[in-house]
């Protein structure tokens, strides 16, 4: 029995393959293994497969982007083949071709962004991103620059970036996530990858990107995002909590009952906020100091956040004045294989792609 999740895991094991591509490749394997005799059956099988994959995979937004792209491609594919087996073969071939071609996208993006990296510039990046790495390594061949990279807790992927860059000879320093504002004045621009680019022109990326964007905005530093076009996603989050990755566990306060019962056991699952919050203790004056582990913190925290393309008018009175004078874009440019786009351009591209 074919398991789409196994196929997905096999594909994603490859360092070069990103989540949406792995989803696309997994779906092409599903076509290979499917015994669907009609287009309708095939699309249904694909939808079911995508659904199953979304349930099992941790990274729903990226998986969704890939699945949606491929299913839209299959439904719109002009089927003029003589029989359905041929069509299926053609679809599989197209899917694999696309994945192969998609691997060259990062190079295109790196070349686009290359012009923005000047000799002697100081770049701030966040967490680990394959496309950012490729861009920096390409630029390193011809230019001298140094990189600050955030630690990106809780996964600490920033360390991986710093290690890889140092190995390649790029001077890089890991900074704390809480030190972004401190370092911002030394930085020339911010360069981040992305999990998904959404229809509002905003960005879904490893948690912390939003605050970096806001600080960059406040310090008048450009904020560039790099995104392969398969990461463009038909999604319109209205707020952070409107993301599909948001669930009730994130930012939840532990119930008092839970905290008490767990304080009986010495290993106590609880949230960081427990210590500061003056929760009504419900008549239990006894307060055992709780120990908070890293796993508990990461459980209560989101993996990704949503960076709006526009700064809200309300942040502060000074901001309102700024907005009257200048364009309130949080994101300066999005580099992708279809070109360097403004956030507005991204949303127009997406609307044109899906609403057509």
């Amino acid at each position: 029995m074919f398991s789409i999740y196994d196929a997905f895991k096999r594909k994603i094991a490859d360092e070069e393959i990103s989540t949406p591509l792995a989803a696309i490749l997994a779906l092409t394997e599903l076509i290979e293994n499917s015994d669907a005799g009609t287009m309708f059956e095939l699309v249904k099988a694909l939808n079911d497969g995508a659904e199953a994959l979304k349930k099992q995979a941790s990274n729903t937004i990226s998986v969704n982007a890939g699945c949606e792209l491929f299913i839209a491609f299959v439904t719109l594919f002009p089927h003029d083949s003589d029989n359905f087996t041929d069509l299926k073969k053609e679809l599989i071939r197209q899917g694999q071709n696309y994945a192969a071609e998609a691997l060259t996208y990062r190079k295109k993006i790196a070349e686009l962004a290359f012009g923005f990296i000047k000799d002697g510039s100081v770049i701030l990046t966040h967490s680990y991103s394959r496309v950012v790495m490729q861009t920096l390594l390409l630029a390193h061949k011809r230019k001298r620059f140094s990189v600050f990279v955030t630690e990106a807790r809780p996964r600490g992927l920033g360390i991986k970036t710093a290690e890889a860059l140092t190995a390649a000879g790029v001077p890089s320093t890991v900074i704390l996530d809480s030190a972004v504002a401190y370092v911002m004045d030394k930085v020339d621009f911010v360069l981040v990858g992305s999990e998904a680019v959404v229809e509002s022109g905003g960005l879904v990326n490893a948690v912390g990107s939003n605050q970096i964007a806001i600080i960059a905005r406040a310090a008048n530093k450009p904020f560039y995002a790099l995104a392969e076009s398969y990461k463009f996603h038909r999604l319109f989050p209205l707020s952070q909590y409107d993301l599909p990755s948001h669930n009730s566990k994130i930012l939840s306060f532990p119930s008092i009952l839970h905290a008490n019962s767990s304080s009986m056991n010495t290993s106590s699952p609880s949230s960081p906020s427990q210590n500061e919050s003056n929760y009504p203790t419900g008549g239990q004056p006894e307060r055992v100091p709780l120990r908070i582990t890293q796993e508990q913190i990461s459980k209560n925290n989101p993996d990704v956040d949503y960076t709006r393309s526009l700064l809200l008018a309300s942040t502060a009175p000074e901001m309102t004045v700024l907005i009257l004078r200048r364009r309130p874009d949080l994101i300066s440019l999005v580099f992708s294989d279809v070109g360097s786009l403004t956030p507005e351009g991204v949303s127009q591209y997406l609307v044109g792609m899906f609403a057509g």
Partner: protein
Amino acid sequence: MPVPTMVDPEPSVGNTAPSQQAAKKVMTKAERRELQEKQRAAKAALKQSQPQPGKPNQPQQPKQQQQQQGGGQAKPKPPQTPQKKTFLTESTAAKQDRAAKEAAAEEAAAIQSHGLRIFSHFGQPKPIGHTVKGDIHPTIIRLGLLFSEFKICGANARCIATLTAFKQVIQDYTTPAQNTISRHLMTHISPQITHLVSARPMSVSMGNAIRELKLEISAIDIDMVEQDAKDALCTKIDNYIRDRIIIADQVIQELAGKKIKDGDVVLTYAKSSVVQKVLLQAQEDGKKFSVVVVDSKPLLEGKSLLRSLTSGANSIPCTYALLPALPSLLTEATMVLVGAHALYSNGAVYSRAGTAMVAMMAKMHSVPVVVCCETYKFSEGVMVDGFSKNELVPLSITQRNSSPKDIAPTQNLERLNPLYDLTPPRYITAVVTEVGLIPPSSISSIPLALGKTSM
């Protein structure tokens, strides 16, 4: 002899004219007779200054006179000799006539000062029973009255009503000899449209629909049998209503419904048919949310929304408040959901007056503002403010919701009730259309994506 002629037209004038045209005819006849009679009487009354009631520069004036006079005449008088009676009647009539004229002039001055100087270009709302010119289909006359009385209100309802009425007009139309339907039907439809516009300015949605209809008419094959052509047009109209309005609303219901989550507080302003459907659908889907209906004078449309949300088997918990209470309610809200009259290509939303304020304040509080709008309401124009184009609420509608305690307009006090305002795109988070959720900045790429370059 003059007495009966004077008395004769009275009853018909007094008994609130049976039909508009009949009343008008009687009035003019009465006027003429009255004038003759007065001139004669004036001579007899030895150089009494001659009244000139026939000057028709103010439309209300003759009516006023008639009514005034009618009232005067109705007073029971002691029977006297015919000669004397004529004289007496005349003198009172002349006096009343002059008084009426003065009143009319005063009123005219009041109306002129009432022109709301800077808003005069919105056009003064016309009195309801305006005259019918030309060959207007009765359905259209009826629709015009419904429009001008705000009995049919809202962009969707008006568009559907107009298209349905035009179906009737098309079915009742016969092409005159030596003419083709594709050429002549247009000349038949145009006055109907003009009539509707004179009842109430056309909505953007109607404009788009009518443009589409005209396009279809001009595309009729000349060789087609007339009845077939008419049926084909009616099918096209039905399809338009179904695809662009009914189905579009269903898709919007689904898309906007996804954004409503358990525990949400949805704030809405006035009444939009789409928003109402979205909320009811979300409730039907079993979502636990509450609604804040913000409303304002003069139309108080939110009441009707409130009624439909709270009636029914499982009603939605609602809060009703007027616009001044908005700041204190917004802190509770998680989303603002409003409808739109039209959407301009710069992303600006033209909607019921007050929406802009709600949107701006919501943005101040970081509450996402979501506008529900079908793509057929898109206008390719650009609007930068609500002053360049707007509509005034007719007085009759304003009075419906005003209490007697309200201050009456005087010469130095005017009431301004614009019907719409414009929300700049930067205050809008997303527009829900049948093609998806779209940021207002990308509105301009939608009609192209739909392949409708003309819209």
